[in-house]
């Protein structure tokens, strides 16, 4: 039973299996095998704790997620209302973050902006994980021709200048939320896929998979029941990091004027660009700086929490 990797009914056994998995994951990390002497002890101290900063980051992210889910229901000003205040007013009690060039409430806009920025980031990385992860697992499991083919696809995607692909799509298609998210999602296929493939390669050779094969399990079953849970851990650890990249990518598109269109499609990227004219930067810094700060903090929180989780699960740092 346990050789086939099924979670055992007995709690202790399953805990051991889990531990074993972590250990395996951990092996991936070190190129040169286990570390000698007191060194590993030292690393141990850092690694096994998520830490205060992590929870701070998580709280921030949860707050942002809450805001983006419930922004329309919160007691915020209408983010599209022109001349809510005078143009470019400094932060005040009425408008906490001041107003922008059209006199709109920057605070309300920033809060609403979380919706698109996070939606794009979240959707993109989920898309990348489903498509890229799926391709990577299949490639790593079946190897051979399929692997070569998928590997080639990944390589091509990587060598196709990412942002160029993005602007190519967003410049020619209607720039809806879906298109922008998909575009960034496509960009995340290759990195996520490479990771999934690498993890799968590690597990596909392990005893429990071999055992399952010997026992005559179908491929689909092996992939879903044996490989997926193992591959999901390192991939999951990188979700937040990937999301950070996606949020910034949306910002870059917005900077080039190619993010989601529409007056109620507020995103941080668009807000930053709107306030990043040199004159605004000089005289009414708050217009750009508040969204920059919120975006920065969010990306920082994503990066930080993601990195902690990565360390926690001992997944090797990946060049995204």
């Amino acid at each position, binding site marked *: 039973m346990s050789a086939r990797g099924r979670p055992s009914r007995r709690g202790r056994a399953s805990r051991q299996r889990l531990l074993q998995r972590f250990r395996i994951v951990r092996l991936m990390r070190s190129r040169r095998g286990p570390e000698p002497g007191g060194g590993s002890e030292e690393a141990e101290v850092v690694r096994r704790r998520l830490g205060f900063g992590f929870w701070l980051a998580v709280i921030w992210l949860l707050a942002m997620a809450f805001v983006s889910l419930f922004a329309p229901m919160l007691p915020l000003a209408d983010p*599209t*209302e*022109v*001349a809510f205040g005078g*143009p470019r007013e400094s932060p005040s009690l009425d408008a906490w973050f001041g107003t922008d*060039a*059209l*006199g709109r409430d920057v605070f309300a806009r920033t809060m609403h902006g979380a919706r698109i920025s996070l939606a794009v980031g979240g959707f993109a990385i989920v898309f990348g994980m489903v498509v890229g992860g799926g391709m990577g697992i299949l490639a790593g499991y079946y190897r051979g021709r399929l692997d070569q083919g998928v590997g080639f696809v990944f390589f091509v995607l990587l060598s196709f200048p990412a942002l160029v692909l993005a602007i190519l799509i967003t*410049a020619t298609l209607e*720039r809806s939320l879906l298109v922008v998210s998909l575009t960034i999602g496509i960009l995340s296929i290759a990195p996520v896929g490479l990771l999934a493939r690498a993890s799968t390669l590690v597990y596909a050779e392990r005893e429990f998979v071999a055992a399952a094969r010997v026992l005559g399990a179908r491929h689909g079953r092996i992939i879903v029941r044996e490989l997926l849970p193992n591959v999901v851990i390192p991939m999951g650890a990188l979700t937040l990091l990937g999301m950070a990249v996606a949020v910034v990518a949306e910002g870059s598109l*917005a*900077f*080039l*004027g*190619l993010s989601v*269109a*529409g*007056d109620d499609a507020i995103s941080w990227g*668009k807000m930053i*660009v*709107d306030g*990043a*004219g*040199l*004159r*605004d930067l000089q005289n009414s810094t708050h217009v750009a700086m508040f969204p920059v700060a919120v975006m920065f903090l969010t990306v920082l929180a994503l990066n930080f929490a993601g990195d902690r989780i990565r360390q926690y699960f001992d997944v090797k740092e990946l060049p995204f």
Partner: protein
Amino acid sequence: MTRWHRFRRLVALLACVAALAACGGGGDGTASTAGTGESSASSEPSAPSEPSDADGGVDEGGGGAGATTSDAPSTGAAGEAPQEEQGSLVAPLDTTTTVAAAGGDSGAETASGPLPLSGGTVRVGVEAEADGLNPAANNFAASAYVMAYPMFDPLAYFDADGNWIPYLAESFTSNDDATVWRMRLREGVRFHDGTAMTADDVVATISAQLADPVISLVYRNTIDADDFITKIDDLTVEMRMARPAARFPLALTGQLGMVLPSEWLELAREDPTLNQRPVGQGPFILSSRVQDVATVLVRNPDYWAAGRIDVYVDRIEIYPITDMVIAAERLIAGDLDLAITSNAEATLIMREAAGVTTIENLRSDEGFAVLNSGRPPFDDIRARQALTFASDRDGYLELIRQGTSPPADTMFHPDLIWHNPAVKQETNMPERAGPLVEAHCADYPDNCTGGRINIELYFGGPSVENVRIADLQTDAWEDFFNVTPVEVLQDKLINQVVLGNYDVVNWRQFGTVDPDSAALWLECDSVGFISLNFPRYCDAERDELMLESRAIDDLDRRVEIWHRIQEMIRDSYTYIFYYHTNWAVGARDDVHRICGQTSPDGTELWCNNSGRMLLNGIWLS
């Protein structure tokens, strides 16, 4: 391989063609497009700059009238009563420019100021790069003119009052009904390659321009396309009109008046890269040009008008800078000597800066929204009225133009005699929109959702400012309209607009000093598959009036006609006028004679023609 490309940008060129005649209008043409996120360059699509007059122009002095100002315009035109007394057509606006900053010494300073010094380099920042500088092949926007005028002396130009005068040509004469014009060239004009300019070059250049299928479109109502230009002798050409055109030489003040050597034209036809290295006859020679970086001109040592036109600087460097706010900052930092822009922020920055003088021209092209009357919902005048009433022009002027541009009620600046003070743009009265929308929706429920009319707002991008404008408009309209903003890449927008694939679109055009040029955009004849009449609104009575205006030289009658036309435009509710563009030229204080250039005959010239600066006599202290 290359010819299609011109087609591709057909309408863009179209627009330009209008600009060819270089009248008072002049947005930055289509070239500004490329915009990338930052290009705040032109707020609106900066479309076709103004049609100016293919057939008549700013000046009325036209025809023989020119006599007063020009050397030898001859009197031939005499047919209609010359308007010489009028002097300036443009009536009250004797100075084109408004000197905004204090020190304004860079204005038309003459004897009283310090003596001009020779030498030095002037560095100019402009809003956009030109695709090429071949006046027979490329579309010149305002920035391109800044690069081209020093290299090409135009056949004609404007005097300080806005009348046409001969410049490279020695004289223009016309027959009685102004259907045939003769142009005599000056002797001894040499191109930069050393060859002498003759009538053959003029014929070759104009023929090349006409061979362009697009350019010929704009000429269609003016010239006899089959037999337009003929060489009479080495220095004389004759041009035949299709109908009377009393002010025809105005057409030759811009791109169309720039003459190329005929042999060079042959070469350029084979090798389009030559478009980047044109050969002219002006006081400056192209030294080097790297697109998107700089165009460098050096003084022509062998200038034909040496001694008649003063040239001081050794070198002019022109830098296309998509973000004019950066250009303004660079000007202040001393990295530039001159910046030419219609950007509100840049204008404000330059105004506020010490050591910089701003020369502003408020009578440039108008910014407005166009309503497509060719399809629902705006085929119903009530919908058009409702949109107009619901519009927030005050907010636009305050928040977008930031007070740099005056509000527009019609397509004429109040300084112009054409302006009808009785016509007011009806905006900011949303209370009047409600009932109209209700009525419309009652009759056409298909056009409406939730009691609001569904419309698509088109605008050009990517551009931060255009997005801002659309946001502002959406906010103003959304009580009565379900606005779907559609941001279209600048280059494609123009195609959508001429094809009528929009409900409402933001545009910049007109800027008319002389009104006849506006006809192109208003005529019924322009409605069609490709419609230069963007609102696709046809009014036969209006057409008749415009034809009459073109045919006569009676200023009072023409003013009367155009006052009436403005009322008709108002009543058709096809345009929502927002503002008159402010073209600003910022100059460091050591730059002199930005205005006050003179013609080869010593006549003082018009300054700041919508950003198309002519900088030949500029000097540095």
